[in-house]
């Protein structure tokens, strides 16, 4: 029987018993022990925890000031030296949900303590905070108060004792984190089992739900490339020998810009491919095969286009996270606009 967990409870003005909407601008304040709704929560956590302080904030005050209150919230919580923070439940209240999420994310990230709050899954605050804290699912209104408090205390107890926490058992909103678990059945067994259910038109649950991918509409084509500046971009991983900018061979996270210095082709003595997704032998024999500088110089001489950009842009995709691709694409585009390019040729593998 170790010592009991020290819990700080965050409530808004209403659930703290300090008034209704007229008190929504209440500044942040702290009380010793449990207050208002917290007394019911205290009864549930009694066996393993004590609410040592209650932090109270007016819904408008906190929602309007937002992250400006970071330091103040941190100060008011840490003075109680808590092991855990519980906020709400907020049900479907947008401002209250935001405040609960904010307080939890500050306590969680700055103090490294577990935090639990509770909201209706459609509360607008869910998407903002579901990754930073555990949001137990509630009903839309306070009708589900008993159930919400019970679930909060169960999950909180599991977290404080470093027990397992999963969305099914503890009824919280998925955070989007992934974990590998050992299954009693092999993947092949599960595949055949799932298929037989599907064939028999029995209900089954896929282990992976795929998102739909957005389509990027390309801009209209140029009527002519004559007199235009063309830039060369490649995903093929061709970089100066020695890979000075440490371009990763898989799951690319950066790009680099290399001056062509009037070169007419890319020689294998000066360039190599570091791409991890294909057999790079042929490209290493002649890097022009992936980054066609030689062909482009000929076309430039023939006047098919005006001028080749002075540098080429290099990266590796190979499972590049979409966020990185957006960031890199945007950075290259800004650069090209600044340097007067009109079009770009991208080679990829």
């Amino acid at each position, binding site marked *: 029987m170790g010592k009991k967990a020290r819990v700080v409870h965050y409530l808004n003005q209403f659930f703290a018993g300090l008034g209704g909407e007229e008190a929504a601008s209440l500044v942040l304040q702290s009380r010793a022990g449990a207050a208002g709704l917290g007394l019911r929560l205290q009864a549930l956590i009694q066996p393993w925890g004590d609410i040592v302080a209650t932090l109270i904030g007016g819904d408008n005050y906190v929602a309007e000031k937002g992250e400006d209150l970071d330091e103040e919230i941190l100060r008011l919580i840490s003075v109680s030296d808590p092991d855990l923070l519980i906020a709400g439940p907020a049900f479907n209240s947008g401002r209250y949900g935001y405040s609960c999420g904010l307080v939890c994310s500050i306590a969680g990230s700055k103090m490294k303590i577990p935090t639990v709050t509770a909201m209706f899954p459609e509360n607008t605050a869910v998407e903002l905070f579901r*990754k930073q804290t555990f949001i137990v699912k509630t009903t839309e209104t306070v009708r589900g108060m008993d159930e919400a408090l019970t679930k909060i205390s169960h999950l909180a107890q599991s977290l404080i004792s470093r027990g397992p*926490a*999963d*969305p099914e058992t503890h009824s919280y909103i*998925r*955070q*989007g*984190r*992934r*974990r*590998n*678990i*050992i*299954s*009693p*059945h*092999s*993947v*092949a*067994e*599960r*595949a*055949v089992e*799932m*298929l*037989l259910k*599907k*064939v*028999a038109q029995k209900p*089954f649950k*896929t*282990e*992976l739900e*795929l*998102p*739909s*991918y957005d389509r990027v509409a390309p801009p209209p084509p140029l009527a002519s490339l004559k007199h235009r500046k063309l830039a060369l971009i490649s995903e093929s991983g061709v970089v100066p020998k020695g890979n000075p900018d440490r371009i*990763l*061979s898989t799951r690319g996270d950066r790009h680099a810009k290399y001056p062509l210095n009037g070169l007419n082709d890319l020689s294998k003595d000066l360039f190599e491919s*570091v791409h*991890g*997704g*294909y*057999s790079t*032998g042929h490209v290493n024999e002649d890097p022009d095969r992936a980054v066609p500088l030689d062909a482009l110089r000929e076309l430039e001489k023939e006047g098919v286009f005006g001028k080749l950009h002075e540098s080429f842009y290099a990266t590796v995709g*190979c*499972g590049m*996270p*979409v*966020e*990185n691709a957006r960031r890199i694409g945007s950075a290259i585009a800004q650069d090209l606009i600044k340097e007067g390019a009109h079009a770009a040729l991208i080679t990829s593998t």
Partner: protein
Amino acid sequence: MRLDLNIFPVGRLSWGAKTCWQDGSLYVGREELAAIFAADPRLGECGIEIARPGENVRLMNVVDAFEPRVKVEGKGGVFPGLNGGLERVGDGTTNVLKGMAILALESGEILDRRTSILDMVGRASQMTPFSSLNILALFFRQKSGISKKEFADAIMTSSIKATCLVARSTLGQPPAGVERFELGLPSTRGTDLPWIAYIYQLNSMGDMRDTFFYGQNTRGLLPTIIHPNEVMDGAIVSQQYERSYTSKIDSYTHMNHPVIHELYRRNGKDLRFAGVVVTNNPQTSKDKERCASMSAKLARFALGADAVVIAKEGGGQCDSDLMVHCEKCEGEGMRTVIIAHQSVSEDASESDFPLADSSPLADAIVTTGNDRESVKVPRVERLIGAPSGLSEVRVNQGEADLPALSIFGAFSSVGGSWLRCIEI
């Protein structure tokens, strides 16, 4: 076709004067194996080691795994096309040494930027089935001046020779047990049980990223039908040495194919095993679509399948092959299930997509796990093989944090994994 596998269990693996199997123990003659490597002019100084389950050891740069098998009755010989003989295989009787694997380790020349290790202890060992087997490790070094491809060919040839030598130790001895695999023609399509076919995708795409079918590189292979027993005799062999484990199928797994075994296990009980279509995943969208159309046609009209299991060999671009096969098969009236692994950050801090392609028809997916889970591996007492060279993931004898795809045997893309990725 009917194939009997004579099972010779290997409970103990140790050195002996000559290679022989006796009462569940396999003794390996070092000199006999060393002679194989010495005879190959492409190889430099090679090594042979033993690693047993639970031993505090790490094997480095693992490129393939084999199970020793030798044919005693029936057409052809094990590893047709690569060990002499081009007769078709899959019937008769084949001896199997069960409970062990022969692993090919390379010097680091081929894997260069990748990591592929096998730990026999610790968290990493729990994620792969190979840590439960007695391992005979063949460590290969190339002669200087030899190209990577020549080195890869030497590894494949010598590994197969060594595997066959070890398997021959079972000749003339009675097995501990026999497993029978029999599948006739899909004659009358009974309506009692659903007919399930497996679409066996391979991915030959370049030197050291190749798979062999009866000794022929499968680049350009158009979909065709094989009898599931053929792979039990080594008809499909890997030379996917440059790839991390999640992007390939190793030779041991081809021989002990999890989907094939599961379909056989339930054959006649709640399904009928219609058969297997094998195809290579090509590089262009047009070729991918052509192959998928043909695979679906064969499954539906040659095998009479009501439903198919689809699994790939390959990396992200082969997720497109999974999706186009799914669409073509569903388009022919067959239900589909896909085996796929995820490759996403653990804390979902990036807006990763779990697969590189998507289809609204892909509503039944079984996941082998998330191969980017960060795994802490401990310091080990013994290292077999060369330390990793240019790899972006540095691990040697000491403690390290690795992405799980560095572990040989974890996340088998054809269903041998016992892992599952959940979202929490």
